[in-house]
């Protein structure tokens, strides 16, 4: 029930309150936003349950939390905390270089990242209930999110034009289950909601991903690394709602102060989007 909304990364109850006040549809509770994870280095893990519970007590909107790729015990712990969704996230350091979590073994719904349609369908076959394009988290640079969204949605478009014989080839190329490819050929969309994440730093970024076809947006460092988080948060929510209306986008983009300082892809030591198999 998160469609048409903004999910914001928060690191404490105060930020969660700001996010809810701005109209966020959910918050992602994590210890450090991706840009700080990037800066600090080291192994990044699931957050302290105390911090997650503090946020759950503060807001009435759903609370998500991140588990490392393949770390099914972190997921078990998060499920026992009654978080509303688990993000099996490439932003944290992977715990398994071959396997993702068997998400069918859980009741709590999972969201997973994807850079292309094959990755998205493999995550869905493992039980993910939502897909988000990965982008490159913590950079404030939208270019990777755009690439991933265009790749996923572009291939969906091509599959709808494929005949039955070509659908087998698509399944092979994508390394994805044939029944999911056949379903996409019929419906023209993923069988689960498709959101966008990674690098969204301004209201215009959020609106662009919505125009490209995302159904909701995740904003990580973009809110709380800007100079006026409360205003930025509200502006991104307004932009996501009114994403087709340039006059409103102009209004909400006005006088926001500095957006987060962004990074060029060529300068990155770690590309988080490459984590996931």
């Amino acid at each position, binding site marked *: *029930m998160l469609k*048409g909304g903004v999910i914001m990364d928060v690191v404490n109850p105060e930020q969660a309150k700001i996010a809810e006040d*701005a*109209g966020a549809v959910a918050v992602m509770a994590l210890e450090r936003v991706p840009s700080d994870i990037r800066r600090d280095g080291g192994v990044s893990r699931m957050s302290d349950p105390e911090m997650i519970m503090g946020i759950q007590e503060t807001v009435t*909107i759903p609370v998500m939390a991140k588990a490392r790729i393949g770390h099914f015990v972190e997921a078990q712990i998060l499920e026992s905390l*009654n978080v*509303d969704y688990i993000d099996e996230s490439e932003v944290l350091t992977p715990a398994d270089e071959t396997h993702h979590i068997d998400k069918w073994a859980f009741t709590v719904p999972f969201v997973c990242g994807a850079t292309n349609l094959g990755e998205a369908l493999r995550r869905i076959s493992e039980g993910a209930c939502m897909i988000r394009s990965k982008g490159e988290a913590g950079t404030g640079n939208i270019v990777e999110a755009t690439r991933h969204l265009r790749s996923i949605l572009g291939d969906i478009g091509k599959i709808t034009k494929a005949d039955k014989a070509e659908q087998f080839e698509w399944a092979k190329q994508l390394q994805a289950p044939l029944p999911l490819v056949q379903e996409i050929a019929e419906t023209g969309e993923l069988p689960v909601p498709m959101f966008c994440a990674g690098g969204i730093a301004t209201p215009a970024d959020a609106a662009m991903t919505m125009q490209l076809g995302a159904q909701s947006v995740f904003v990580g460092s973009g809110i709380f690394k800007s100079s006026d988080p409360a205003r930025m948060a509200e502006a991104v929510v307004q932009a996501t*709602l009114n994403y087709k209306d340039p006059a409103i986008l102009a209004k909400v983009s006005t006088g926001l102060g500095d957006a987060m300082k962004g990074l060029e892809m060529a300068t990155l030591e770690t590309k988080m989007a490459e984590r996931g198999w």
Partner: protein
Amino acid sequence: MLALQGAFALHLQAIDRLAATGLAVRGVPVKTAAELAECDALIMPGGESTTMSMLLDSQELFAPLKKAIHGGLPVFGTCAGMILLSSEILDGRSDQNCFEALDIKVRRNAYGAQVESFETALSVDGLDEPFHAVFIRAPGVEALGAGVEVVSKHQEEPVMCRSGSVLACSFHPELTNDDRLHRLFLESIAGATSSGKATG
């Protein structure tokens, strides 16, 4: 169709399917007061009621919508939509607004968190066969005012209520491809027939 946030796209598909069966309805998304003014009936979808309540304010839609509903606009609220139509919200934010259109007291997430979501077959007044209902972070009805009719119950608790032209349910009727509740609302409450009414 109120289209600020949430499951509005699936509701619009349900309306389209009904239109294809010959019911004289047309579904349009509503985000502004001008779009609202074009509608003869409104569906308020599930989603996050806290978020929707804020967006109703920021889109300057709360006051015109409240006036329209109290002026007799037929409205069907599902899940978060039920919360917004109620007269009192428990376990919500203290500043969360509601339309006071249906004299019920609702408790947010009364059926538990996301992991406690469930599906069940409900008997609904006006339907011959049970309806398969999906409950997700669903609101519970804790008190009913005079004149509120209970249309369906789950384990003796009301989950679907009606008062005049206002209908609300705790669950998500748009998640199944069963359009009988949409038809019930459009025909019996909004008065849709085979001769021309636009529905938002």
